[in-house]
């Protein structure tokens, strides 16, 4: 079974809802349709099921134009699961699922076969135990499963779902989408999603709609790029890889826009010691830079995630002169430097030296020292720290104190004044 949508346009009250939509789906494919509210997703589904008639374009089901088919023929091949279902009359669940057989029933009443198919649809959706209950007594998840069962009773070759999991809890969401996914091996499944991650997880292909047009269509990793998402949803995101399925995993970038006029804090860290600090700093209105970090270091990853300008160094090597100088450049641009509690060896000793240089430049340095540092430098670290003390670095016991101290800073120049006074 192949569904072809060619050049479909739909206008409603003189505003374009769909503009030149073209795509195709075959059996065994699970297509996810996404886009902001009002992009035309539900309208597209309605055009496919021929509830709405597009003003231009054609929709072909296995080469048959949908317009030329009778309602019954369409219903024999296409099942639709809407967002919500309100059923005013006290029908039992079995009655409702049995209604899915309507397009197939000839004559006055249902046949044995119809009853069997209904039972099977209920088994597939795990709704058999609800058989005798009335529909409106059910929970949201149960209702949705019943409606899906009804659509399945139609024995559709195309299944359309409109936000099937919006009102469901997480276990229901997975249950339903797993079911739908398993069905999608035989039939065409098109589903509208709001949750990008669910869509990325389950769909074979995705379609992004914006401003009534298709922005992107194809495999999830190609469609879900930060650029596309920014274009369509106007949201900054970071894309990671789902470690289980290797599909894209979207993390919205929730931190507020950096106020470029605010203070800049340069963090020298490593080994995970800078994670909390960088997170906290990034959430406040401060610019943050970091360096130098080993690219395999978790702090490096944190910095990257937080989109912090970080200087990375190739693994298993000491800090090169170049990195060191770039670090100093960053330090020069910052207002305060924070040195976290990380294990120091010959490889990253230069980071401590950079902190010293910061003090020479007149930039205040906060040193977080929770315990005696593990010293892999045969005593050189001790000397560095002594020098830091001499140059009036501020020693604090933990990240919170560091943060408070940063909060008290009013600026480089001010500190210098204070520092000179202290020295005096």
């Amino acid at each position, binding site marked *: 079974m192949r569904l072809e949508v060619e050049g479909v346009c739909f206008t409603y009250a003189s505003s374009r809802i769909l503009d030149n939509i073209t795509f195709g789906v075959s059996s065994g494919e699970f297509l996810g349709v996404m886009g902001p509210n009002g992009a035309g997703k539900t309208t597209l589904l309605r055009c496919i099921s021929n*509830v709405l008639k597009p003003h231009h374009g054609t929709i072909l089901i296995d080469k048959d134009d949908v317009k030329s088919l009778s309602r019954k023929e369409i219903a024999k091949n296409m099942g639709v699961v809407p967002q919500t*279902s309100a059923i005013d*009359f*006290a029908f039992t669940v079995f009655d*409702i699922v049995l*209604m899915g057989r309507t397009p197939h029933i000839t004559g006055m009443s249902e046949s044995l076969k119809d009853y069997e198919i209904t039972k099977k649809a209920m088994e597939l959706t795990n709704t058999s135990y609800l058989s005798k209950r009335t529909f409106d007594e059910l929970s949201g998840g149960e209702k949705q499963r019943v409606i899906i069962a009804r659509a399945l009773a139609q024995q559709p070759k195309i299944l359309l779902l409109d936000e099937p999991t919006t009102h469901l809890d997480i276990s229901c969401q997975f249950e339903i989408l797993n079911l739908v996914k398993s069905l999608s091996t035989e039939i065409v499944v098109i589903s509208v999603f709001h949750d990008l991650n669910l869509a990325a997880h389950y769909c074979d292909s995705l379609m992004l709609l914006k401003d009534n047009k298709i922005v992107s269509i194809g495999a999830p990793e190609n469609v879900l790029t930060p650029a596309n998402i920014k274009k369509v949803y106007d949201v900054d995101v970071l894309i990671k890889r789902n470690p289980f399925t290797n599909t894209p995993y979207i993390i919205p970038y929730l931190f507020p826009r950096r106020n470029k006029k605010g203070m800049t804090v340069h963090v020298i860290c490593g080994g995970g010691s800078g994670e909390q600090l960088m997170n906290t700093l990034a959430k406040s209105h401060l610019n943050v830079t970091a360096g130098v970090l080993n690219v395999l270091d978790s702090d490096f990853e944190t910095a990257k995630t937080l989109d912090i300008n970080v200087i990375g160094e190739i693994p298993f090597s000491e800090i090169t002169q170049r990195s060191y100088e770039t670090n100093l450049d960053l330090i020069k641009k910052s207002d305060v430097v924070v040195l976290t509690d990380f294990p120091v060896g010959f490889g990253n000793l230069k980071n401590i030296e950079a902190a010293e240089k910061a003090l020479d430049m007149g930039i205040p340095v906060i040193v977080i020292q929770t315990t005696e540092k593990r010293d892999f430098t045969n005593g050189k670290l001790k000397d560095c720290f002594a020098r830091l003390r001499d140059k009036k670095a501020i020693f604090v016991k933990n990240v919170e104190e560091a943060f408070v101290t940063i909060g008290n800073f009013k600026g480089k120049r001010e500190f210098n004044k204070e520092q000179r006074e202290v020295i005096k």
Partner: protein
Amino acid sequence: MMNKKTSHKWVFVCLLFALLFTIVITMMIGSMGPVGGGNDGISFQAFWDVISGRDSSSAFRSIILDIRLSRIFLAGLVGISLAVAGTTMQGVFKNPMADPYIIGISSGASVGAAVSIFLDIKFDFSLPILAFLGALLAVFLVYDISRVGGKVKVETLLLSGIAMGAFLSAITSFLICMTGKQLHFLVFWLMGGLYLASWKVVATAFPPILLGTVGIFFFSRHLNVLTLGDEPALNLGIDIDRTRKILLTLTALVAGVAVAFSGIIGFVGLIMPHIMRLLVGPNHRTLLPASALAGAIFLIWADTLARTIIAPTELPVGIITALCGAPFFIYLLRKHKGGVM
């Protein structure tokens, strides 16, 4: 499911027996007795003579078999029509307040009847024919003005029905003002009554009511699916426009004929479907026949009261149905505040 089907079967058996029982008993009740008559009424012996055929030519025979029995049959037919029409309208409009008159049937029939009286038309069945034509015309108009861009939405139909009803009521009132004589009769007719019953009337009313009712039964499944909503029904393969048109036409036929011969009898078409839905559920396959039987039983009893309670004067049966119907309706409303039926 097995249990439900068997319990439904029992409901049907009970209803059928109740109907037979009703017909037999109400044949004995009337202003001439044996039950409800004065001392000069028919005695039970005389009644039995008539039934067994021994009495073949007296006035008593005419009273029981011609006048009374034909009236009972007409009451049954009208009861069936109104109950089935009401059930259908509640399904098509998905509205528990819908009754058989909702799309302009009652107001159209009133205008037809008023016209026939106003114009002093004097041929047999002139009033029922004009009432029926009025009902059909009103339904046709209501459907036509509800058509927006080739589609007819259910909400629009409802509102058009109300608007048309108000408009036609005004015309009827105007005709009433102008008609002077026979004003009383028109007012009585509007209140509903089965006093025009005769075998001729029953024979005339029976075919269209039978046809219409059976026709609606055939669409039970469609009605079930229609109640899911427009879009779900479309997606399940029902041509909702065509189905609705057919159902509205059949309802107009059935209710129009009923109204033509019996005036406007309220509450039967509104209440019976609700009661039966509580007993047999919302599946129209069982609901429609059950409502039909219940409607017949109810109206036969109501009419028996109407023609006996202050004999020899007759009370309009619409008053009896309203007196029974209104309190029951209020009870229903309070019980099912959630709106689920």
